């Protein structure tokens, strides 16, 4: 069934764009409230230490200082963390575990006074030995980062061991086995707006907090829980967010500390992190080392896959259970491999805790997996494209972890990208120093592996002029999710986009939501909006029945009007209905409909939060392939990206303009992580490249020609056949695709990121030596 759409699938500029181009769009950092103070956080200069004493007396005497808090003001019960509450607001036990950890905070009349006061706080530390490398952290004699956690041994934060089928059997069946080891570096989301929070606490004990977040509902919950305030008295507000890319996710120290300062002085307090501070503590993408082993038959059928990996967790657990299980399960969404085993460990280190990064957990696995496929193809004497096509999942398959693939455009993605980049021709007529590479990734949408729930809720209110307002707790951090909601309402209700508004996040008004992760807002949020529209239609028919004096069965909704079936001249518009319920009925029949995307999840966590995770625990799975042509300068090691072709199986395009931008952005972000980005620390654990001067991200000059292809595989789980998109192609596939292309160009395989000219030159020198 091909449905004809009037709005869905078109190019609609962001509804918020006009205020963004005129400078009127409000970001939390722009807000100044009457009587507002400026806050500043004092952070640990040591990676691992005990605080012997904090003396705030000099700071307190500084004119303009209104409040100081230290761990002494924070009861030791105030621990948080999503997958285990091991994390303090401030170092409550006097134990600091990474450079940048919160030690004290000040609220003062201006930024200068707040900074000066922080300088006047005297902290006496006893420095402990620290550990920064994951393998060293696991040694029995390594410094123990969490001696207070009795279950933690050898700094292991979490472990997963999943086997499906039998890898022993799988490798026995194999004619060829390849093994290798890969490593990717930690990278920053490097959103443009450093994190910021504004809090106010009034005399009736209402806490109001303005944030910049992917998941504002969680910030409200965490504030209420950690600070022990009734949820009814916590308000979280958000207007625009200056980028997040997976970070700025949950309630963090910044929010709690700002709130605590506001509570202490009962005045508004704003804390804006500097870029340097933000980089030091942001929940960045983890570094990881992965051992890979793949086995295949001579015909290219992959029979077994084994990975063993070690992830750098940083000082606190945060979301590591999710991270590890996602990485394992998602990895196996791509290819038909019956026997798989993943052994994963996350190690505590004395570094800032890691977190969620766009395309959560994909790059860490794809970098090795997609290079291993190429290595296997070479040994088999097969084309890398053919090997992928032979093993690719298809519609109707179930992955080894029980995910059913209601739609799967992977084969189309591989075929279309390889065709577009002229794969066969490029391979047949190889030019010196040039090469092509290909790689794929998949990503689930509305994942329930971690909680067994999710879904989304949208409320729609019909106004008296026939326009509608949408209430959603799902955030839009710039990617255009609210556009998709508005377009859905416009499509379903026949209301012009000019009469549709998505209200800014105010937790007192909007429904609770899971937040923006794994494209779930696009899938579940659009679905909820669609369902709310159906409810609006139903309620409009009921009201129109009274207005037109016909039974509801005789009425139909079409393009913003309710008609008497077969009588086109007898109808009422949405405006007539909105006005009727508001004015004629004195508001007593206000139409406000709810849409809920709620569906059964065939997965529940085991009693012990076990690692089996079998079941259809996702809304849908989306696929992508990225092909790249590179030229490698063998005298300098510089990689020149000649062209990128990227195919995204998003199910169905909702807003073409937005998804094109998402793909471009992901490609360039991924290009940065492949070729230039890396968080670097010194011997004391201090981040040495916190700013854009030293942490180089791609600039306009780095943009290669990018050709985008959208594969619309029509996912049956969602109303428009849509699922998610724009995350994995750039983030997951580009790294191995570039590595594969470099190998094709000059015959060296780079197994760690970033792929720098230096690494290429060293590999080339090594290769020459071997010859």
């Amino acid at each position, binding site marked *: 069934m091909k449905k004809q759409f009037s709005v869905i699938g078109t190019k609609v500029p962001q509804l918020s764009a006009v205020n963004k181009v005129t400078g009127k769009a409000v970001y939390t950092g722009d807000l100044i409230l009457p009587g507002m103070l400026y806050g500043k956080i004092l952070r640990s200069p040591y990676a691992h230490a005990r605080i012997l004493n904090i003396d705030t007396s000099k700071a307190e005497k500084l004119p303009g200082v209104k409040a100081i808090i230290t761990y002494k003001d924070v009861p030791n019960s105030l621990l948080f963390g999503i997958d285990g509450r091991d994390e303090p607001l401030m170092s409550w036990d006097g134990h600091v575990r990474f450079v940048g950890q919160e030690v004290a905070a000040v609220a003062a009349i201006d930024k200068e006074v707040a900074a000066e006061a922080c300088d006047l706080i005297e902290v006496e530390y006893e420095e402990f030995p620290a550990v920064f490398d994951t393998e060293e952290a696991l040694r029995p004699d390594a410094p123990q980062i969490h001696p207070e956690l009795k279950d933690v041994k050898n700094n292991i934060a979490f472990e997963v061991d999943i086997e499906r089928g039998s890898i022993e059997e799988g490798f026995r069946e194999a004619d060829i086995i390849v093994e290798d080891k890969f490593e990717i570096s930690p990278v920053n989301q490097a959103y*443009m707006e450093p994190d910021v929070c504004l809090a106010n606490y009034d005399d009736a004990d209402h806490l109001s907090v303005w944030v910049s977040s992917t998941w504002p509902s969680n910030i409200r919950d965490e504030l209420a829980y950690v600070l022990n305030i009734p949820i009814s008295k916590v308000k979280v507000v958000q207007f*625009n967010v*200056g980028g997040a890319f997976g970070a700025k996710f949950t309630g963090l120290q910044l929010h709690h500390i700002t709130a605590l300062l506001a509570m202490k002085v009962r005045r508004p307090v704003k804390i804006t992190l500097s870029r340097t501070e933000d980089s030091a503590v942001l929940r960045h993408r983890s570094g990881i080392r992965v051992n890979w082993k793949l086995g295949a038959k001579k015909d290219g059928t992959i029979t077994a896959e084994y990975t063993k990996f070690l992830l750098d967790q940083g000082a606190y657990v945060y979301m590591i259970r999710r991270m590890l299980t996602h990485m394992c399960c998602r990895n196996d969404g791509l290819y038909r491999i019956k026997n798989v085993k993943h052994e994963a460990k996350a190690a505590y280190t004395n570094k800032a805790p890691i977190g969620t990064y766009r395309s959560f957990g994909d790059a860490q696995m794809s970098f090795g997996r997609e290079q291993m496929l190429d290595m296997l193809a070479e040994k088999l004497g097969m084309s890398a494209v053919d090997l992928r096509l032979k093993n690719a999942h298809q519609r109707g398959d179930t992955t080894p972890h029980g995910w059913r693939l209601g739609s799967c455009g992977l084969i189309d993605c591989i075929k279309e990208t390889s065709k577009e980049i002229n794969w066969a021709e490029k391979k047949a007529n190889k030019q010196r120093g040039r090469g092509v590479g290909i790689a794929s990734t998949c990503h689930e949408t509305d994942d329930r592996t971690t909680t067994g729930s999710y879904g989304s809720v949208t409320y729609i209110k019909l106004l008296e002029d026939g326009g509608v307002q949408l209430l959603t707790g799902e955030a839009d951090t710039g990617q255009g999710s609210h556009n998709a909601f508005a377009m859905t309402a416009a499509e379903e209700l026949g209301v012009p986009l000019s009469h549709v508004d998505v209200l800014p996040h105010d937790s007192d008004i909007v429904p609770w939501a899971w937040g923006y992760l794994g494209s779930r807002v696009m899938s579940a949020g659009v679905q909820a909006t669609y369902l709310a529209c159906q409810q609006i239609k139903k309620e409009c028919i009921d009201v129109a029945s009274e207005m037109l004096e016909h039974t509801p069965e005789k009425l139909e909704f079409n393009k913003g009007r309710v008609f008497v079936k077969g009588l086109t001249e007898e109808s009422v518009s949405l405006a007539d209905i909105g006005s009727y319920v508001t004015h004629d009925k004195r508001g007593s029949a206000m139409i406000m409909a709810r849409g809920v995307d709620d569906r059964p999840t065939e997965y529940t966590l085991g009693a012990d939060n076990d690692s089996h995770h079998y079941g259809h625990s996702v809304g849908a799975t989306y696929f992508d392939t990225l092909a790249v042509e590179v030229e490698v300068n063998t005298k300098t090691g510089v990689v020149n990206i000649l062209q990128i072709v990227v195919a995204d199986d998003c199910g169905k395009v909702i807003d073409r303009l937005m998804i094109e931008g998402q793909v471009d952005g992901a490609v360039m972000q991924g290009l940065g992580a492949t070729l230039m980005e890396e968080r670097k620390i010194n011997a004391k654990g201090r981040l040495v490249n916190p700013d854009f001067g030293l942490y180089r991200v791609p600039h306009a000059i780095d943009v290669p020609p990018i050709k985008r292809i959208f594969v619309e595989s029509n996912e049956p789980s969602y109303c428009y056949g849509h699922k998610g998109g724009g995350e994995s192609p750039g983030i997951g596939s580009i790294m191995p695709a570039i590595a594969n292309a470099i190998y094709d160009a000059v015959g060296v395989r780079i197994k760690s990121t970033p792929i720098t000219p230096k690494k290429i030159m060293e590999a080339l020198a090594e290769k020459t030596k071997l010859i």
Partner: protein
Amino acid sequence: MDQVIKLSINEEMYEVIVKPKDLLVDVLRDKIGLTGTKRGCDSGTCGACTVLINGKAAKSCRTKTIELADKKITTIEGIAKGKILDPLQKAFIDHGAVQCGFCTPGMIMKAKSFLQENPNPAQDEIKKAFSGNICRCTGYVKIIEAIEAVASGDYE
């Protein structure tokens, strides 16, 4: 030491008290309330704070306010004529060159200055000119398209 100076911003005069070290970005945002100009870094490397000083793009986080007494400052709030948007503003909307919007004011101000100096740029010239303005959302593709569209006269 605090000094009172007069600033011409978006063709209006403002009298402000500043310290010699006060940066324009902070004065604009905190004292004058023109918050369209953003601060994205500590080192003049992101370009989000770009404004025009006497028509030329300048990073307001690298500019001391005290030196601007005789200069004309233009911020993102000053380029539309009432409700009529500047061609660059229109092009950024139409081309989807705006996502989170945090870099947008700086990008548009830089583009305004750049197109005055080079009204018919080649694509490579645009790419080079924007080496001091970072965007993390769009991958620059649609920003470059928007600037090209204005340069080619699509918005006249």
